[in-house]
């Protein structure tokens, strides 16, 4: 495919999972060798055989999963590999000064002596960008930089990007967030299935058209979900499946009441850090509450560990798929059948035939892109890994499924699939607790929305009150 990046431009790179965005970048930066074609950089033919070489020549990449070392200081992270030395020893004063200068360029003033891990994800991202810039100042590639950032942090990031653009850098901005593309990009390249769909001036491409080029089918899916949701609401069961009464945990979440009914999609809305995951963890037995109780089908239960929750029909698809979800060396099939198997205990094996059938079923249902069910999960793309985890929980047929950020870091098409899935599951009678940072998703899929702020449940929105403005207002006013 052809791709052009101009000096002093922010060029967005968009596409489905498996469309080829990551591959393109890896070929550009020398992680993968190229099979054919040529690359020209500054008018000269360009070829590198390693990311380090690419960096030396002026191209740096900041990845979605920040590849820095949390237990080293900010200075060390910024300058690792090329720290100023004096007489063979590291020159710390100069290092710290240099680190501060690098961050100042991005408008950051942090204590560079502190450990990287003590800073927020957003700040770590900035530091990663700082490192990249220090190493090479011609092309900066940002791979999904805003996935873990909130609104303000993303604005900061964009301010930095605009400043760098003004300085003449070429920035490749890989993202799934369509609105962000319009906020900050000059041109957009759309990929699909490893092929170029087109390159467009952002100003000349209406949002609807961009979406159509990316999604194809998914657009219809969103409309479908909205429409069907109201029909599904009529079938919600009267009796609550799970009730939380005064459930709370110190330093984690203030005591709250929550009712969830079979066939209902209950959304959990709130900013980062508002306590949504903490709530989910209490309901699933990952954390033990300090106070309050949980009733399932009217009976009090002790959910002291995930197994107990499993046996009571509760499932949780965790927020951090990399650390809490996938077991990367195991196959797709093993990852999918895991919970179902765990439910059966230590001695009752799921027969191989059944395992294979289950794997096939869910691979098909969720359109998981993998060469075979035996492929180790670590070789799948992030979005497909997420689907494997969702499949794992679906396979265990819970009565209540908690989905914590199931669409994080995956593209629009896959997001639409998952939202359709949520709808169909609720139509079959499953109760769903849907947690997402993207308010439009929560609004689209939920029958009721519980609103959180700073680890307290503020209240609930039902029916007409479920819209983005209303919810944001509720959060802001308390």
């Amino acid at each position: 495919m052809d791709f052009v990046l101009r000096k002093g431009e922010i060029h967005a790179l968009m596409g489905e999972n498996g469309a080829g965005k990551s591959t393109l970048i890896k070929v550009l930066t020398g992680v993968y060798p190229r099979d054919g074609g040529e690359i020209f950089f500054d008018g000269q033919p360009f070829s590198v055989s390693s990311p380090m070489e690419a960096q030396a020549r002026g191209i740096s990449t900041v990845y979605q999963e920040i590849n820095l070392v949390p237990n080293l200081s900010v200075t060390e992270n910024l300058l690792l590999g090329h720290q100023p030395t004096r007489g063979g020893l590291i020159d710390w004063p100069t290092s710290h000064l240099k680190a501060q200068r690098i961050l100042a360029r991005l408008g950051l003033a942090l204590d560079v002596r502190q450990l990287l891990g003590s800073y927020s994800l957003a700040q770590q991202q900035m530091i990663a960008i700082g490192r990249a810039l220090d190493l090479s100042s011609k092309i900066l590639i940002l791979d999904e930089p805003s996935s873990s950032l909130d609104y303000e942090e993303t604005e900061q990031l964009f301010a930095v990007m605009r400043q760098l653009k003004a300085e003449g850098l070429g920035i490749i901005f890989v993202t799934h967030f369509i609105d962000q593309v319009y906020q900050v990009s000059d041109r957009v390249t759309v990929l699909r299935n490893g092929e170029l769909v087109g390159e467009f001036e952002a100003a000349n491409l209406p949002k609807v058209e961009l979406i159509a080029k990316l999604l194809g089918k998914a657009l219809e899916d969103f409309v479908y979900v909205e429409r069907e949701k109201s029909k599904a609401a009529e079938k919600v069961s009267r009796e609550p499946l799970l009730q939380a009464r005064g459930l709370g945990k110190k330093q984690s979440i203030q005591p709250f009441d929550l009712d969830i009914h079979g066939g209902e999609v209950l959304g959990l809305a709130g900013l980062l850090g508002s306590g949504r995951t903490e709530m989910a963890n209490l309901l699933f037995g990952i954390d033990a509450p300090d106070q309050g109780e949980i009733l399932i089908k009217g009976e009090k239960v002790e959910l002291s560990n995930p197994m107990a929750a499993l046996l009571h029909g509760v499932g949780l698809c965790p927020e951090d798929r990399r650390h809490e979800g996938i077991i990367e060396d195991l196959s797709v099939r093993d990852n999918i059948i895991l919970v179902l198997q765990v439910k059966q205990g230590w001695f009752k094996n799921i027969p191989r035939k059944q395992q294979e059938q289950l794997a096939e079923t869910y691979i098909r249902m969720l359109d998981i892109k993998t060469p075979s069910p035996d492929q180790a999960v670590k070789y799948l793309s992030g979005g497909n890994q997420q689907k494997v985890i969702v499949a794992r929980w679906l396979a265990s047929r819970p009565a209540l499924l908690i989905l914590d950020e199931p669409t994080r870091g995956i593209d629009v098409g896959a997001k639409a699939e998952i939202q359709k899935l949520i709808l169909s599951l609720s139509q079959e009678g499953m109760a769903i607790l849907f947690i997402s940072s993207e308010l439009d998703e929560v609004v689209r899929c939920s029958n009721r929305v519980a609103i959180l702020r700073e680890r307290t449940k503020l209240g609930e929105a039902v029916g007409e009150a479920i819209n983005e403005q209303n919810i944001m207002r509720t959060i802001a006013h308390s």
Partner: protein
Amino acid sequence: MKALKRATASPLLWPQLILAVILLFNLLFTEGFFRVEIKDGHLYGSLIDIVKRSAPVMIIALGMTLVIATKGIDISVGAVAAIATAVAGILIAKVHASLALVIIAPLIAALLCGAFNGLLVSVFDVQPIITTLILMVTGRGVGLLIIGGRVVLWRMPSFEFLGSGYLFGIAFPIIIVVLVFAALFVFIKSNPLGLYILAVGGNPLASRYAGINVRRVRFAVYLFSALCAGIAGLILSADIKASDVSLVGMYIELDAILAVVIGGTSMNGGKFTLVGTIVGALIIQSLTTTILTRGIPVQYPFVVKAAVVILVILLQSEEFRKKLAIRPVGKKPA
């Protein structure tokens, strides 16, 4: 062609090849290596000898395989074997206990050691190498205390059968190995336990979210590893008809770990292979035997062992294979 590719992709290939090479070497250069005869109704021969001598390492290595699969390690096995030896020795020499007690009591002692390891690792989250280091350092001291501080020689024909007896013409230690292996195979391979062990080794946090009782799994593998060490200790002392607490099983943990790694179990989790461990143990023992029968002085086996181990591990490494332009196993990560 496809079968060839699949065969070369199997992690078991290289260990088996190496073993074949060693055996071939002996076939060509060592007189009577492959000769198996029947004397006094028992099978005899260098080959048989190798298998018999490797029995203790094999058993310990089988237990070690599971521990390594949970990304742990157990370096206390030698000391646990010594403790088992001590308990057996005391029971035979001082108490003149029944065979049943002589066998069961040391195994219970071993299980207690395993429980100690398991508790520290699974409940208190102490790193496995540090935890098992405790027993490795203090275990023999404990054993010496039990046995009264010296080497104890004893005779107990029924117990000695464990080390030198024959059943259906096959040396009894081999029978024990077969039993342990069979039990493991049934218990682990056709059971979800193997999957849980891999899950815990691969990602303990994700395993917890999936409902696995991570503590219990970890506790179990250390328990089992110690049990294996206890069994090995019994065989070793029955073989020499003595309880030599200071020396029995010395460095056997190293041989066991080597056997596991050569056999193809990855120290990074993801898979383990019991058959591979058996092959690995055979390689180590046949190497030692080959070297000794060639008349090479006793220091050299260590050097040769080290060289072979390095070779096998290199061959197992994807990077190395790529450099040799042998097809790597599996795809590149996305």
